[in-house]
């Protein structure tokens, strides 16, 4: 199992557009990716799950995935999370 703990860079957090970009990347990966903030874990392909976690700028989140190219997928997703998509 691959895992990454990241700090969210987008100024408005993981809402609206950054959330769409992220969810799209998860869906395209074909893997089941889980996102954890605090004590809550959701399916990262669920935009409603992502939005309802209320993920803000500078929040720390953890991504986990299983599968053959899990590390590669998480690296791509980490790139999205740690880039300011609102800039």
């Amino acid at each position: 199992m691959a895992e990454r703990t990241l700090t969210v860079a987008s100024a408005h957090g993981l809402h609206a557009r950054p959330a769409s970009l992220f969810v799209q990347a998860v869906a395209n990966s074909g893997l089941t990716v889980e996102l954890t903030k605090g004590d809550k874990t959701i399916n990262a392909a669920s935009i409603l799950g992502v939005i309802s976690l209320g993920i803000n700028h500078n929040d720390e989140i953890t991504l986990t995935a299983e599968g053959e190219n899990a590390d590669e997928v998480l690296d791509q997703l980490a790139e999205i999370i740690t880039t300011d998509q609102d800039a």
Partner: protein
Amino acid sequence: MTPSLSGVGIGRGLAIGEILRMPDPLPEPSDAASTTTPDAEKVRAAGSLAATAADIRLRGDRAGGAAKDVLEAQAFMAEDPTLKDDVDKRIEGGKTAERAVYEAFAAFRDLLLSMGGYMGERATDLNDVSQRVVAHLQGVAAPGVPTPDHPFILVARDLAPADTALLDLDKVLALITSDGGPTSHTAILAREKSIVAVVGVTGALALADGQTVIVDAITGAVTVDPSDAERAAVQTTLADRAAAKDVPVGPGALADGTLVPLLANLGTVDKLAEAVEKGAEGVGLFRTEFLFLDADKAPTFDEQKAKYSALFAAFPGKKVVVRALDAGADKPLHFLNDEPEENPALGLRGLRALRANEPILRDQLRAIATAAAEKEADAWVMAPMVSTVEETRYFTHLAKELGVKTAGVMIEVPAAALLADRILADSDFASIGTNDLTQYTLAADRLLGSVASFQDPWHPAVLRLVGEVGKAGAALGKPVGICGEAAADPLLAVVLVGLGATSLSMSPAALADVRAELARFTLEQAQKFAELALSANSAVEARVAVLDAATPNTQSPTESEK
């Protein structure tokens, strides 16, 4: 008397016309037990969810821009795997597909509403997707914007992105919503597309199709069934505004000839041509950080010098004010400050971050000074977010040492505004950043939708601080510029000049309106407006007081109808 409703105006538009209401939403699907098998209901639900996602995406592609991003997010909501699981679970409990979809979206909507603020405003998106899926299941038309063949003013509870995206801008004169705040989609898209809009109007839903209203975004007033005099006044104002747009491009000046140079706010060298075309007399704020946001390390001297040379070459002999790298709460630069902070807006940002990384600041100042000397540009350099006299001295001394001819500071912190007389003694000029000054004066995070109503530069407390800087500038003979959203609001621009601003910098798109407004008034009038605004109790009062004074020929409806 003429009844008048009020809400939050978006922008400065004015419109008069007949109302059309958004059709009422679909009735809630009945909770009768399904008459078919759960598997059959699941297939129906899956088909309609997918079809709705595809339809929303198509609308997004047609709309483009910010609307496309919003609609893309909505399409993902229709495709959401967690939602689909919830729908299937409800169907297994004996619900119809319609009812299961309705309940599943409602559960998420309530969750978002309970979170309030920005999240709460996203609830409208969910309601819209839910309605569209249910309509598809029932084989009825999706609720949406009416499309008559005559111009109209649209009244709605709140508009979903799918609605606003396809608005026919030639037909929609204005938008009125009963719900939604200044950060709702209706407000965001109205701003982007320059649609006249007033949001959050209590009582708007009681308006009937065919009623005539006047929508004034400046005051946030909706005048219902206006009198003949009120109708005539609106037509006159609209004609005046249309004529004012034709004022030829030239130097910014008041009616008495007092010059007020109008400059451009720029973040990239790509926008230079547009700024020159719109008549910018120079650059009042060049935000250097946007050149380097993608970088994970500090840009080199040579990389920077090349970019500044291109900038100076576009404005030969003209004033170009370059702001040193500004790592802010809303635009972090990892090579300047990578420490997580509890309150980034109050943290190690602006000049504070540069000072902690002095080699980066030195490189930048040298690059600007070298490029300026080569291009013989009138380059001014200023430090962002300066709080103290000591910081002012630090920056201006360092800049001069490295060859910068004109060094100044930005006034964004109330402490700096209050001590402007001492700060300007050590600085060649000051430039007031009204966005941050408003945020710090009213203690309201400018990125937070739930406190967005505090972010109003018309607030007399903000204006008083601007006035302090203006007075200090006049006493010491130092220029005081404004670079912030406030300068782009034409009437507020006049007030700022009255408070002592000697130049105004704004996004190029705003130059024409501001130039036209400045030409209407003398310096004496501008100073009178400033006094009126300063003596008001609130941003709204200040705006109304100045607006009344600025339109002497038309009686204000709010006064005459009492």
